[in-house]
């Protein structure tokens, strides 16, 4: 008999500043990495399509926020990451990876430069917040390090109509003339907010860091202007259609950037950094003797791939594993991402998926799965 009552009195899931707004909008709340957030409000497919065709509004306040300041801030970040943080001037952001001594991925993150050399805000995966903070602390080169996760709420506004909507609320910027990864400091009702041209959907969009006590006011204004509340279910299908990696699926502490298709996030010529030598060896190994490659695939038979399903060749031998999968709302087909042996990784290669004992046909396709 299943016992669904938690006997642990210590565990209490956290609520974001927007919890009441989600309840009011009839969000179906689930425990997501210890946070109570809506998986959907109406339907995942509907919300997904709204983002692709209009504009959606996400509460992603559960993400971790780590502030790193002072004269050693850049040096510390350069030591711990694969990308070149010195490229960032104030008002720019970049995608980056924390790398272990052995060249494996500790986390993926976005670094927002607020003042060159001196002030950076890191946005990390919710479930890795403490791990990342401890990791930076352990390897700190003397920077001022603060876990600001409790200070910031984070709203994402994404979709082709997002710039028009944003222009109505923040008239001071010509949003159409901004670039991906631009970062702006603006005022909202007397509170300083950070508006960045970043996102996890593939659509034009922004992510807005805002003080918790102002988050609801901003959410309601954006909603009134036409932004549709969008849940975490659609957030996952949107990123999947773009083949964006999700930590714990495509990348984890046992994957390195090159097999995951993230070689572009490694600036191999950067001055010595943690894992640099190991990465060089892994890069060479991936070139000469790759073990596996991350690919996107579609199902040829009617079915839905899911994380953990085995990939097989025609002889029924295991050749890989699915890392993420869903029914693509845009395509109406089962799509997935997974690691396969290199001989099965070319576009057009067919393989089989074992789904509940039945073999289902799949084909490697070009990604992103959709054209924007």
């Amino acid at each position, binding site marked *: 008999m299943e016992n669904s009552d938690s006997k642990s009195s210590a565990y209490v899931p956290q609520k974001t500043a927007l919890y009441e707004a989600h309840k009011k909008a009839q969000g*179906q709340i689930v425990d997501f990495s210890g946070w109570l957030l809506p*998986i*959907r409000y109406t*339907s*995942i*497919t509907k919300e*997904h399509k709204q983002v692709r065709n209009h504009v959606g509004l996400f509460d992603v306040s559960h993400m971790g926020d780590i502030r790193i300041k002072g004269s050693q801030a850049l040096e510390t970040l350069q030591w711990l990451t694969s990308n070149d943080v010195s490229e960032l001037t104030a008002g720019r952001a970049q995608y980056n990876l924390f790398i272990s001594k052995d060249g494996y991925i500790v986390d993926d993150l976005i670094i927002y430069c607020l003042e060159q050399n001196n002030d950076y805000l890191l946005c990390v995966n919710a479930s890795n917040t403490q791990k990342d903070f401890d990791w930076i602390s352990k390897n700190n080169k003397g920077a001022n390090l603060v876990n600001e996760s409790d200070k910031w709420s984070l709203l994402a506004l994404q979709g082709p109509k997002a710039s028009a909507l944003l222009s109505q609320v923040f008239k001071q910027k010509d949003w159409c003339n901004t670039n991906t990864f631009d970062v702006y400091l603006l005022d909202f009702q007397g509170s300083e907010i950070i508006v960045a041209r970043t996102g996890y959907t593939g659509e034009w969009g922004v992510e807005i860091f805002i003080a918790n006590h102002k988050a609801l006011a901003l959410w309601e204004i954006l909603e009134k202007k036409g932004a549709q509340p969008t849940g975490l*279910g659609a957030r*996952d*299908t949107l990123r999947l259609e773009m083949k964006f990696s999700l930590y714990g699926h495509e990348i984890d502490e046992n994957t390195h950037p090159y097999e995951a298709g993230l070689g572009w996030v490694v600036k191999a010529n950067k001055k010595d950094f943690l894992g640099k030598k190991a990465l060089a060896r892994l890069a060479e190994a991936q070139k000469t003797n790759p073990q596996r490659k991350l690919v996107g695939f579609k199902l040829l038979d*009617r*079915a*839905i791939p*899911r994380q953990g399903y085995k990939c097989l060749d025609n002889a029924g031998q295991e050749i890989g594993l699915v890392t993420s999968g*869903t*029914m693509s*709302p845009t395509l109406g087909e*089962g799509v997935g991402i997974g690691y396969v042996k290199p001989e099965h990784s070319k576009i057009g290669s067919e393989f089989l998926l074992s789904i*509940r004992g039945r073999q289902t046909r799949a084909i490697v396709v070009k990604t992103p799965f959709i054209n924007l």
Partner: protein
Amino acid sequence: MSKESFAVPEENYYTKDHEWALVEENIVTVGITTFAQNQLGEVVYVELPDEGSKVSQNEDFGVIESVKAASDLIAPVSGTITEVNSSLTEDPSLINDDPMNQGWLIRVEMDTEKELANLIRASEYRKFIEKK
């Protein structure tokens, strides 16, 4: 949607896996309840066994998938499948629109009536979902 408005017809048997079973002589029609489809969200895919195959009480006989996840379907009785709802291949959303009627999943020729004693009735199921 308030739980009071979830239809729980008296004539059905129910399970704590949120299946309903309508018993007519020795033929049992099986589906998932209104509460279940509401929890699941939009159904995008259903996998059902072939006619003629055997099912066992409390064992899985198929899968129902929403965008987000796959859930096992658990057989409320043991027997042989006489009919499968083929409309669901093209239109799995029937399960969301009319789970208690047109969204039926399978019909089973029951091995023995005795297994019905393991199922619950409408009032107990209503109490069960109220707690959720």
